[in-house]
Structure formats: structure tokens, C-alpha cells
């Protein structure tokens, strides 16, 4: 009873968080956000089936997997605000580009599908480590749209030939921004491609969290046993817009979305499962959602007022080891500009206030 409840709670909290952060973007407090409405079962079902130290390479809609691993609300907010507590990207990337070594979650990049052949390399590294060989896999998430990229083909080839224990999890949610799956491929989804690469493949109802859990669990087992790529295609539906920059009603009827929410709702389906066993109740639902809302609001308010990293941070970590002259000199250039205009030019003066240290480490 404990584990299904845990999974349900993890699924239930997602729309609460998504709704808050989506609205917060609409109010101009963060620059960008992507929700995962409708895909809660795919995300939590798969996350639960992986080991905590399996390496994860995700696309962009998999925050839920990071939350499952214990990533905190404060850290989510820090990255979305890009404030000085952001350890994921030190304020250098757009919102939702999470990453955490401690959680074995590789930093998200906006380029689609690049993570796929990288996952094959990550998995290979695992086989080369005697402590992790046969124990851990590299799980890589991507959408059915990203799977059109050459990098998908490359990743499948490498994981099957080298080979390396790479678990490919395709979220087929029906849309790549406005492009429906029918315009993305003519074949039978992503699953049909797997056998072409000699890769064990399963297609699963992505809105049935228990089915996803079972499928990914078995896929993982097979992946580790054979040390080779395995493909899981989770069939689901993107209820929300692609991102805050998208209005999906420009390309699909509202009724279609409403129908999906009503007829095939992953949270509702699992709720029914728990109800039938007396493992959940309305009162618990309300109480839990209330608690999550309070916690996420608290994290939001806390993160909202924080300053960014110091201005000088923008020149750090371009290179490791000794810093090349061009980086050094360009930092000096900024220094000179701040010294000259930083106090006199109001737009800069106001902007500098948003940074820890207000640029003084450079201008003074």
C-alpha cells in the first residue's frame, strides 16, 4: 500500500506544481516553463522502475523524475528563477534545464535528441566500472518528435552494437509543438523502429502507471542482463501546451483536450485503482494537494526575491583548468564598462541590483 500511495502522491503533486509555475510565468516572474500535464504516469511509472543511481539523461519534460529522486522544491525554484541558489546551471540556462550529479540526472540542454547517443556513452562508462557493471543502466527520455533526429538513429546503433546498457524511453505524447505524430512519421510509432536495430522493444499504455512501471522494470532487467539497448515507447497525450510560448488551441480543438482529460486521465485512473482497494480518499486528496500547494508557494516566495549569482559568474566554467586569455580579457572589458557606466546609466544600475554583489566585484 505504501508504494502505490507514494507513486500516486508523486503523480498528484505534479499538476499542482505545474499550475503554479505556469501561472507564475504568465505573470512575468519567470521567463519560461513547460508542464507535463497528461504524462504523469509515464514519468512516475518509469522513475519508480529505475534504481536511484541509474544515470538519467532527459529531454525537458521530465522534472517529475528528478522530483521522484528527492530533488527539492527550493532547488526547482532556484533554477527557474536563476537565482544564486541555482546549482543546476548557476543561472546560465533557461528555466526547466535541471541537472544534478548527486541525483544522477544529467543537465538538460535545449537541443533535442543530443542526449540519446550520449546515453549510450554514459551506459558504456557504467560497464567499464566494476562497481556498477550489471547494476546500473543509463535511461534516456525523449519525445516522439525528437526521435526523428539523426541522433536517435545514432544512439540506437551504438547501444545495440558496442553494446551498452541504454534504456530508451520514448514519450509518445502525440505532439511536437504543433506537429502531430501523423506528420512526424509514417511508420508505426517509435516502437516499430526498435526491431530494425535489433533492440528489444515494448510499447506500453503510458497513462497506466502500473503498466509503465512493469514495462520499464522488465526492460531495465533485460537491458542489464544483456548489456544492450532496450526501447520502451509509452503512449500518452500531451494535455498541456508545448510550453508557455505555445497556445495549442491554435492547432487542436479544445474539445479534444477536454475529452482526453476526461476519458484517459492517468491520475484519475490510478486514483480509481487506489479507491477500489481503500488506499485513498477524498479527504486525503484534498489534504495532500493543499500541503503541496503550501510548500511550493513557500518555495516560490522564497526563491522569488533572491538575487542572481554575482555578475562575474558569467565568465566562469567556460573552460576547466587554466583560463584562456580571451575569457580573461573579456571579463576585463565588462569591468571597464561597469566602472564607466555602472553608476550613471540607470538601466544598468537597476539591473545590477538583481545580482549578488551588484557587480561590485567587477566595478570596484
Amino acid at each position, binding site marked *: 500500500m505504501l508504494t502505490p500511495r507514494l507513486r500516486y502522491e508523486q503523480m498528484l503533486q505534479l499538476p499542482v506544481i505545474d499550475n503554479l509555475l505556469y501561472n507564475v510565468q504568465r505573470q512575468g516572474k519567470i521567463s519560461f516553463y513547460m508542464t507535463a500535464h497528461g504524462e504523469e504516469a509515464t514519468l512516475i511509472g518509469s522513475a519508480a522502475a529505475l534504481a536511484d543511481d541509474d544515470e538519467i539523461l532527459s529531454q525537458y519534460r521530465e522534472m517529475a523524475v528528478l522530483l521522484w529522486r528527492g530533488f527539492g522544491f527550493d532547488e526547482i525554484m532556484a533554477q527557474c528563477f536563476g537565482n544564486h541558489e541555482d546549482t543546476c546551471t548557476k543561472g546560465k540556462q533557461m528555466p526547466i534545464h535541471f541537472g544534478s550529479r548527486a541525483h544522477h540526472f544529467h543537465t538538460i540542454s535545449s537541443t533535442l535528441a*543530443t542526449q540519446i547517443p550520449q546515453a549510450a556513452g554514459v551506459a558504456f562508462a557504467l560497464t567499464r566500472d566494476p562497481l556498477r557493471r550489471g547494476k546500473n543502466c543509463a535511461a534516456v527520455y525523449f519525445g516522439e518528435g525528437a526521435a526523428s533526429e539523426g*541522433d536517435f538513429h545514432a544512439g540506437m546503433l551504438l547501444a545495440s552494437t558496442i553494446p551498452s546498457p541504454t534504456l530508451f524511453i520514448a514519450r509518445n505524447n502525440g505532439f511536437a509543438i504543433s506537429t502531430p505524430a501523423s506528420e512526424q512519421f509514417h511508420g508505426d510509432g517509435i516502437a516499430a523502429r526498435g526491431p530494425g536495430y535489433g533492440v528489444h522493444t515494448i510499447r506500453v499504455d503510458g497513462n497506466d502507471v502500473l503498466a509503465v512501471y512493469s514495462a520499464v522494470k522488465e526492460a531495465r532487467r533485460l537491458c542489464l542482463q544483456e548489456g544492450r539497448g532496450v526501447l520502451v515507447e509509452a503512449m500518452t497525450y500531451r494535455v498541456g501546451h508545448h510550453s508557455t510560448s505555445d497556445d495549442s488551441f491554435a492547432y487542436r480543438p479544445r474539445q479534444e483536450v477536454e475529452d482526453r482529460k476526461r476519458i484517459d486521465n492517468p491520475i484519475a485512473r490510478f486514483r480509481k485503482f487506489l479507491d477500489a482497494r481503500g488506499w485513498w480518499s477524498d479527504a486525503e486528496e484534498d489534504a495532500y494537494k493543499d500541503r503541496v500547494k503550501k510548500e511550493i508557494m513557500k518555495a516560490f516566495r522564497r526563491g522569488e526575491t533572491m538575487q542572481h549569482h554575482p555578475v562575474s559568474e558569467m565568465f566562469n566554467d567556460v573552460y576547466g*583548468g587554466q583560463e584562456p586569455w580571451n575569457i580573461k580579457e573579456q571579463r576585463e572589458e565588462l569591468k571597464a564598462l561597469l566602472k564607466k557606466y555602472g553608476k550613471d546609466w540607470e538601466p544598468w544600475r537597476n539591473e545590477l541590483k538583481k545580482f549578488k554583489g551588484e557587480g561590485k566585484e567587477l566595478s570596484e
Partner: protein
Amino acid sequence: MIKSPKLARIPHRNVLSIRSNRRWQSTSAEPPPAEGHLPSVATSSFLRTTPDSALRAPGLQWADDGLSGPPNIALAERETRKMNLYQAVRDAMSIALTKDDTAVVFGEDVAFGGVFRCTMGLAEEFGRERVFNTPLTEQGIAGFGIGLASMGHTAIAEIQFADYIYPAFDQLVNEAAKHRFRSGGQFGVGGLTIRCPTMSVGHGGLYHSQSPEGFFLGAAGLKLVIPRSPVQAKGLLLASIRDPNPVIFMEPKILYRSAVEQVPIGDFEIPLGKAETLVNGSDLTLLTWGTPVYHCETAIHMLRSPPESLAKHIPQSIRSAKVELIDLRTILPWDVETIAESVERTGRLVIVHEASRTGGVGSEIAAEIQKRCFLKLHAPVKRVTAWDANAIRKVLYT
């Protein structure tokens, strides 16, 4: 008429073919090597053809020596061996594989020894788990290498020809270069080194002759290295493999066999980011890298004592010009200090590179040097490069 009694017994139609075969086989020339051959390299004074000169290559840092203080092993006790460039590259990888358990070498056709023999015997020596073929996918090779390196392993990837590096451009520029920066320093792919044969061989055409280093200049986070000789290749490659940043190591393929030196067999590095002055001068700075180093050497000789046919084009007054020749070696980040210091003295800069003119590395160097040395320049910075018309990688020397 057929004179030989042996031939007389052979039916007439077969005699004709034998006769023509004999005539065509009389010169018995061997087919040229795939990577071409540059005869002038063999007599280059820049090659270190004695053990002594090899061991004293400037900037050489022995792995078993500290950074300062007296050497742990006397130079006289160190050994060298005659190696060409591909053998030196192979030697470097062998040392990397020996000393670093996480190191692996992979790419197309590397297992049997590689199309340029750079990986000969490595699979046999270190096993197919550490030296292995990948499918034909440069974007896959780069992506795989990035994944491996992100886990702290040493990934030595080969792209078969620099001309084919473009499918990997997204992985290299968007992912490898930015890996550390975008993850707030949590992740990085310092263990990644991508090797590729570069530059022209004469018969390579559009797609076996390119010098794509210029395309990567905008990808801060990457390093680009181009060696000119076996000693340089071994030291710079070991330094590249161990550098905490992803490095693209481009090997001038025409030099694979043409450049032969005595190469120290021990573990040594040559520092990245440092140019080397090959000839000291005071009248003009000649800057180049890779194969053109040898063409520049020839050009300097021709300037000093021009051949009969060209004599009338070269006034006596300039024949005694002292040209300072510099090999850039690391293209990104490039050694602006050495170049600027030289141009401050000479007042003239000529940059030579095989890549075509527009947007080439020469344009970046020219812009920066004219900014720094503007008041000391006697003439605009000149670029001697391939023309923008792509077909032939030929560089004119003036």
C-alpha cells in the same frame, strides 16, 4: 619481331598482351599512398632527426618530472625511436591506454589499425573492449564520447577525415563545448579528445583535404590543436587527452609518413596554448600551422636564394630579410602573447593557412593583432590562404 624462342612458342594473341604488359610494367611505380607524400619534409631542418635534438625539444614536459626543480631522470638515460607521425600518434594513445584505465579509443575502422594506421596493434594489445569500431556515424561517435567523458572517463574518438566532422558539429559545439558552463560546473567532458586527419594531400579533392578548424573558433569551451611533426604530435596529443577540456586534435595527413623524427619513447607532453618560434627573425613574422610550416620553410629559403627563373621577381633588397617563423600549434585558445610580441618587433605579419580565406582562422588573428600592434605595423596583416573556390587546396607562396 619476336626473337625469344620461349615467346615464339606462345600463340600470337597472347604474345601481344605479354609484350604490352612488359612495357607497362617496366617503370614499376608503386601507387601513391592514400595520405600523399611531401618530399620537402624529409629534408626539413625543423625535424628532430637525432635523439639529442628530440630529447631537447623546447617545452617538453616529462611525465615523471616535477614542474620545477632538477629532472628526475637524466636526459642521457632517456630513449628515442625513429617514428613517423602516425606512429607517434599511435605511441601517444598506447601510453594513454596504459596509464589510464578509463581510456578507450573508438571510431570507424580503428580496430584493424585505422585507415591511416594510427591505431595499429592497439586492439590486440589492449583488447576490443578498449579499442573498438563504431558504426558509421560521426554524430554518434561524438555523442558517445561526450557521454563517456561526462562520467569522468577518457574518450579518445577518431573521426576518419576532418571533412566528415560536420555531422558531429552539433554535438561538439552545442554539447561538448558548453557542457561545463551550462551545468554550473557539475558536469564536464574534459576527458574527450577527438582526433581527425586534416589538410590536403594533392589528390584528395573537396572531401579529403579540408581544414575545418575555423568553423570551431566560436565554440568557446573547445580547444583545437594541430601538430607539425611526430614529436609535436605525441606531446601535444598526450597533453590534449589529459587537458580538462574537450580537444579536437587535427593531424595533417600528408605528414603521416612524410614527417619522420626521433621521438622520445617515454611519457611526455608539450603544452597547449603555446606557439613555437621555429626561426628567429626581425623583419617579418610568418605565422602558420600544420603542413604549411614546411612550405613556409621552403619559401624562406627561396627568398634568400631564389631559383634562376624567379630571380627577377625578387629584388635583392628583400632577399636578406630575416623572417621569423612561428608554428601556432594550438589554434584555440591561440597564443596571442607570442604572436603580438613578435609583431611588435617585426612590424609585419603574414598568416598562412590551408583553409580558405573568408572566415578562416587568419581573419581572427589578423583582427586581434591589428588591434594590439596597430601603431607598430608597417603594412596590413596579410593572409596567404586557399582561395574561397573550394575545389583545390593549393596555397601560393610569395
